[in-house]
Structure formats: C-alpha cells, structure tokens
C-alpha cells in the first residue's frame, strides 16, 4: 500500500488522482479487449486476414495508450496547456497534409503514413483543441485585454475548415459542439446562445443540401423505407436477438454481416453476444466518467481546469452517446467510434491522451487562491 506519509511523486499522484474515474477507464479498456474478441474476427476473415489480427492490434495499441494516459495524468495544468499547444500545432499541420499526401479511403483523406504508421491526425487534434479553447475562455474571464475570444473563434474556424476539407463531418460536429458548450459555460449571454444555435442549424442544413450522403442518411432515418437500411436493421436485430443476457460469446451471427462490426457497431455486437445487461453496464461506465468529471468541474475553482475538464468530458461523452444512439437507431447514421471499445489505433492513443489530461485536471490540488500565492512565492525569487 502506498503510504500517505511519504511525498514520493507516485504517492502524491496516487492520493490526489480520482481513483474511481481511473478504475472506470481501465475497466472500459479491458472490456474493449473482450468485445474486440467478439467483434473483429468476422471482419478480419472477411478481408482475408488472420481472425485475431485486429484483436492483436487492439491489445498492441492499448499498452502504449495506458502508459501515455498515466504519464499525462502526472502533468501540471501549465504543462498540459503547453503540450496541448504543441500537439495542436503538429496535428493541425498533419490534417492539412492529409489533403496532399494522405491516401483516399472511402472518398475521404483522413489518414497519413508517418514512419510506416498509419495515423489519423484529426483524432489528436480534438483533445488538444479542447484544452486550448478552455484556456482561451478562462483567460477571457480573467484578462479582458487579451483577444482571447477572437483567437478562440479563429481556432474553431481554422479547425472546421481543415476537417471539412477532408471531409470529416463527424469530427467537425464534435469540436463545434464542444466549442459551443465551452463558450456557453464561459457565460455567454442568452442572445448568443440563440444565435449560435441558429448558426449550427444553418451548418446542418447546408450539409443536408450540399453533401448528398448526409441528406440520404437523414432521409433514411426519417423514413426507413426510402433506402437501404441494412446496417441499422442488422444492428437492431442484434439488440433483439441478444435479449437480457445475450447469446453467449462467439454465438453472434449478425456480426458476420455487419460491415463495421469492429468499429462503429461494436455496441450492437456486444448486445447480441453479451446481452443488454452488459450494454447497460457500458452505458453506466460512460455516464459515470462523464458525470463525475462534470461534477468535479463544477466544484473546481480554477477557471482553466474547470473548462478543460468540462470540455474533455463533453468530448468523451458526446462521442460515446452519438455512437450508442446510432447503434440504437435513435439518431441518423454517423460514423463515430465508441471510446476505448471500438478498434482504431489513432483513436485509442488520442483518447488515452485526452483521458490522461482529464485525470490530471481532476486531481485534488490546493485551491486556486492558494496556488496563485504559492506560485508567486515560487516565482518571486526568479528575476523577470
């Protein structure tokens, strides 16, 4: 057992980190392996790979992800801001580069190969973006003379343009949502809430009118008879076939015909093989992490830590909620992975980075006033 008396870095981390959230995240990671065992072999065999190819890769990515998450959770808020700036700059450049060097997969340029590793830079953009925006809104409250609002808006516009060029509407939607939520929390007046909602609806409408596949998906959602609802039908069938306790591991049949069973439709496979009860446990885990982080943010007095915690929690929560809702046909089909459960190297590492920062920001630390005075003492000795 770790002693409270000693002040080793590990001890101080262990006693300040939110151990329940950490446990929930690690449970999700382990659950991801089990569900990958169920969901990915049919996909692997369909494309002529070893049945456990994706399982192996999943585990291979999970180890560095776990290490990264724990390492990031040791960082101070200041280091988190600085590293986020670096990560954002690099991934933004990479997102732009995918336009020119990335391979085209299903009509989009999202991937880029660096040193033999296939990377989806937009995944790394997301958490870094959230941190930067949280920082800017926190600054805008503290220091009115810094053009923080303008910079925050510029960041949003630049990121949205870069992502729409790929095109990646899912990620665009996510970051716009988080940006809007943070702006809202930063104390925006209700007039602007109405205005922003208007802009967002305008964005959705233009996507509906100018991007044919989005229009098709929405129409299909509103009227399933208007087109091919193969994936959704099969997904729903999985839930019904599964029942409370599932058909048992390996007994799923619908997963064999679901094209993205290891990525976007893992949740449905989980339902068929392990039952609705397990799905409810998954929902509870996601809800627990998100709600606990938001509650923590509410208590936190430091504006940056508050906004950043809330932003990361909303990012994580929105992604999980959208994925599960698509699986359940509650909203139109939108390709989005289920955090830590779906297969995807970039997504896994990026999530670990985001959750690591969340854990770091949620750590108990002396209150903001105390910290500021402490810092003043610390910096007093250093000549400016």
């Amino acid at each position: 057992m770790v002693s409270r008396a000693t002040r080793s870095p590990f001890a101080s981390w262990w006693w300040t980190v939110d151990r329940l959230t950490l446990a929930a995240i690690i449970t999700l990671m382990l659950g991801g392996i089990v569900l990958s065992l169920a969901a990915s072999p049919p996909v692997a065999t369909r494309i002529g790979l070893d049945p456990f190819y994706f399982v192996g890769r999943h585990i291979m990515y999970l180890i560095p992800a776990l290490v990264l998450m724990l390492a990031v959770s040791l960082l101070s808020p200041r280091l988190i801001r600085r590293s986020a700036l670096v990560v954002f700059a690099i991934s933004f450049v990479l997102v732009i580069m995918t336009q020119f060097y990335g391979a085209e997969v299903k009509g989009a340029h999202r991937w880029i190969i660096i040193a033999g590793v296939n990377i989806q830079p937009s995944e790394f953009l997301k958490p870094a973006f959230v941190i930067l925006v949280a920082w800017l809104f926190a600054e805008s409250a503290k220091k009115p003379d810094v053009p923080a609002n303008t910079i925050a808006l510029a960041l949003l516009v630049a990121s949205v343009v870069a992502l729409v060029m790929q095109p990646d509407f899912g990620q665009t939607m996510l970051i716009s949502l988080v940006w809007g939520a943070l702006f809202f929390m930063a104390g925006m007046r209700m007039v602007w809430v109405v205005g922003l909602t208007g802009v967002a609806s305008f964005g959705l409408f233009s996507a509906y009118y100018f991007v044919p596949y989005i229009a098709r998906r929405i129409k299909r959602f509103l009227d399933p008879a208007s087109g091919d609802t193969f994936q959704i039908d099969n997904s729903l069938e999985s839930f019904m076939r599964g029942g409370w306790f599932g058909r048992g591991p390996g007994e799923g049949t619908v997963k064999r015909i679901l094209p993205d069973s290891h990525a976007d439709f893992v949740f449905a496979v989980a339902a068929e093989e392990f039952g609705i009860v397990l799905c409810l446990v998954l929902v509870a885990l996601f809800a627990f992490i998100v709600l606990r982080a938001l509650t923590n943010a509410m208590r936190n007095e430091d504006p940056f830590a508050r906004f950043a915690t809330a932003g990361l929690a909303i990012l994580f929560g929105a992604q999980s909620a959208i994925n599960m809702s698509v699986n359940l046909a509650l909203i139109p089909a939108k390709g989005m992975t289920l955090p830590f459960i779906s297969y995807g190297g970039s997504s896994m590492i990026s999530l670990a980075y985001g959750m690591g920062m969340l854990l770091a920001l949620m750590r108990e630390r002396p209150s903001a006033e105390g910290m500021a005075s402490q810092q003043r003492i610390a910096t007093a000795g250093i000549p400016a």
Partner: protein
Amino acid sequence: MTDHNPDASAEMPLAPRTPPQALHRRSVQAILYGRGVDRAKKAKARLGLAILAFSIVYLIIGGRLVLYALTPEGPVAQRRVSGDAVATSRPDILDRRGEVLATDVMTPSLFAEPRRIIDSDEAAELLTAVMPDLDHSDLRERLGSRRGFVWLKREISAKQQTEVHHLGVPGLGFLTENKRVYPNGPEVSHVIGHVNVDNQGTAGIEKWLDSTGLADLHRAGFASDRDQKPVQLSIDLRVQHALRDELVAAHRKFKTIAAAGIVLDVRTGEVVAMVSLPDYDSNNPREANDPTKFNRLTTGIFEMGSTFKAITLGMGLDSGKMNLATTFDARLPLRYGRFKISDYHAQNRVLSIPEIFTYSSNIGAARVALKLGVEEHKSFLRKLGQLDRLRTELPESREPQVPKRWGELNTVTIAFGHGLSVAPLQAVMGVAALLNGGKLIPPTFLKRSEQEANALAKQVVKPETSVQMRYLMRLNAEKGSAGKADVKGYYVGGKTGTAEKVVNGRYSKTKLMTDFMAVLPSDDPRYLVLIMLDEPQIIPETKGFATASWNAAPTAANVISRIGPLLGLVPRFDLPTADRQILASSKPTR
C-alpha cells in the same frame, strides 16, 4: 503564445491608463457576456445544465436498451427475410440452337403467420404428418410464438405444397422463390458467368444482362414474372462441349497450367465456342474466386508469339510495298543494340515472304516490319484493334499492354509477337479480319446475322491481301509447322506460335506459352480456331519438344475433326495445293 504571468494579471486591472485597445476588448466582452455578471457563478450553473443534459441522454440510451431487451425478436428481422424473397426472375439464356444454358427454377417455400393460427398444437400435428422431417417440438414452439412471420421450410416440392394446402390450416402460406440453375455446370461458365444469392448477375453474360436494364426492372418491382424474352447466345453448346472435352484432354496430357480455346465465325464475328481451363461451375459461384480460374481469353493478356507474324505479313502485303515474291535477308541474326534476334528454324539464307511464314522466321518478320517503319506498324495494329481495349458483352476485359515508348526495337519484337500483350480474343479478331476478306468485325457472344455483322464491319485490308493471307495459312499446313493440324477434308490452314514466358523479368527458355490459330476451310474461310496451352510439358510423344506444333497444333486437329461436322462443313477431298486452289482461282479478280 506563452503562459500568462500571474503578476501581470493581478496588476493589469489596476493600471492607471487603460489603452484604447483594451477598452475595445472590454466592450466586446460586455457584448458577449453581459456587464457586471459573476461569470464563475454562471459557469457553475451552466455546468449543472450540462450534467442534466448528459444524464437525460444516457437515460434515453439506457431506456431504449431496456425496451429492446423486452421486445422479442421482432419486425425488423421479418422485414428483411421477406424482402429477400421477392422473386427476382431472370430471362433464360439459350445457345444458338435453343438449348437452355441458364434458367430460373421456381420453388415454393412454406411460411406461417403464428398470430393468425388458431390452434398451434393441431397445426403442428398436421404438418408433421405431411412433412415428417420437420422437428415437432420446434415447430410447435414456432407456431405458438406471437410473431407475425416465420419460415417453416424453404424450397419444398410441389407435392408437399399440395398436401399442405389440403390440410386447410389457416395462417400457413407459400412464397415462390427463384433459383438460378445452370444445367450444363462448368461447360459454358466463363461466358455466362453467374449470379449471387439475390439472383443478380455478378459476372459474364449474367452481369451484362443486369447492365442492360434488368436490374432497373427489378428495382422497380417488375420483372418478377417469367414473361421475359430469352437471350440467345452465339455459343453452340455442341461445339463448346467438343472444344472443352479436347482441351481437358490436352490439359491433362501436356500437364499444362491452363488451356484455352476459341471458335470464331469469321463472317459474323460470333464466338461459337469459348473455353478457358481451369474453369468453374456456375452453379457454385464461390469457385470463381479462385485466382487461377479467370477467363484467359478476355481477361488475360498474352504475348501471342509467332501467330502475330500473320498480322505482320498481312501488313506488309497490304502496304503495296512488297508482294509474295519479295525477299528479305535472313542470313545472319539481326543485331539490335545488345539484342540479337535469331531464328528457331534458322535457314541462314535469303527468304521470300511465304518462306518467312512457313519457317516462322523472326528475322524475316522483323525486317518486314522495319521496312514499313514504326509509325506504319503502330497505325496498322491500331486499325486492327490490337492496341485498344476490346469490349464485348462480357464485362470482364483488360487493356492490352502496349509499350509506352515505342522505338524500332519494339517494332522488331512485336513483329514476331513479343513485347505486346493482347487479349487472345483480340488477336483472333485481328487475324479473322485478315482472312475474311479484310473486314474487322467486333466479336460478339450474342447471335448475329451476316447482315448485322457487315453493318458493323470496317474494311481494314484489301480483299487481295486477304486472299494472299489465306494462301500463306494453307501453305503452312502443307509445308510448314501447321502440318499436324491438317485434318483431311477441311482444307485447314494455320499458324503456330510459341512465346517464351517472362519469369522474373526475363524470357524463360523452358516456360512456354504455345498457341495455334487454324482457319477452315482456307480457300473460303468460315471459322477460326484458337488453341492456347500455358506451359505444356515435354512428353515422350513430343520427342523432346514443347513448341506449339507438338502440342497446340495436334490439339487443334482433334478439335477440328470433331467440330467440322457439327458446324456443317462438308468435307472435300483431293483438293489441289494452295497455290492453285487459292491464288490461281482468285487471279482473274486481281
């Protein structure tokens, strides 16, 4: 951007003079956030809203999950299964004589609507009496469920259907489903292709049928009855069978990797038979995924070897710059840079055009092409359709592999059939044009009349050139390498070809692709036969040789002797030699 300095933030609001820029920002702040608001308090309240929103979203997801857990397997599954059963019927495919190559078989399938069944125990009792192979307890369970639709047995016999009908149980019904059947199995597989489980064509003529509008009909919900006009192919099933039978024998005898053959009507461009071994059974389309089983005649491209000399010499004779008596120096191998072109049957003397053909002289063919030059060579091959992708009804086709930079060396090698890879069907079309009076007719797999063919035909060489080519082909059977294919009575002419296969970027001396093109009868061509063998092995019978005249030519002879009578060719015996029968008889027209 750097991290802010806490000292500065503490001092800034107290600064005596506010710069105008800061004033401007402050007004922006006021517009965005309002004046005199405790933003920290506001943030707390709004975080509370976010917590509420997420709680609601997750509760909805959980609620939906619980709802699904409570519904038994429901309407979604049903809709999908019954949707599949909408009968997609396809027209029959017939051969040129009306034999069925592909047809739909309608089979009834038995389903039940459990909600409408009054007494499920009685129904199960009665059904098992008629169909003892149904599991009684399972049946009772299915009929007793409250679902709207369940399959009881797919594809039952007509007798069973009547018996079930006579039971008079309410809530039972039949759906007719279509199943595509190919009575000839693998016989014509590469031509007709196959369909997938939904009866949609995925290869061959079946796919072509869908592309001609059948698929649209299906989508619109028509085409579900059997009133569709059958499609008649150019294939003659009997000829197809004879060709396949002989190719199977040759495939086995010479232990080849692959064997393929075409019989083409040179007057109409109809493909009367086409076989590519190894083939697959259209009834089991999964076999077609085997990569060795592709159609070598349309999807494969090959260097055709010496058979291409027919095209080279045809070009020479048609140019007017040479005639049958023109001679070319073949005394020494032709040196071209670091390449040396020599003859397989080296004569080491000056050869006339007929000699170049019968001795299959590489040097001679190269000199003929060089005399005309690169540009003329290229444009002739283009005119003959050898440089562009050949498209037929079969969706499977491949672009020929044409050298990107075509220099004199390319012309030299292409003259004797190396360095240009074409689909074999394409080469057959080109040679047919040289023999049928000079008309290039696009080949077809559908039945076609001579008038229709003439309407499509393009005159590519003079009729006189065609006569000379017939003479050369026949002469080669009388004196040259095609002797083993001279089936008595059909006045066969032909040209052998042996191409060295490229192995690891080099031409291999031991891995050969042999082919043989035969025309019958030579004096008034009706059919062109192509036989191709991929890597035939030396067997005792061939005396140490693996070249075309020892395997492809005898195979062609076997095929011709079997298909000649089927094609209605009347055997004629004791005909004079080629110079008198072909050249002399056509003299007056020149």
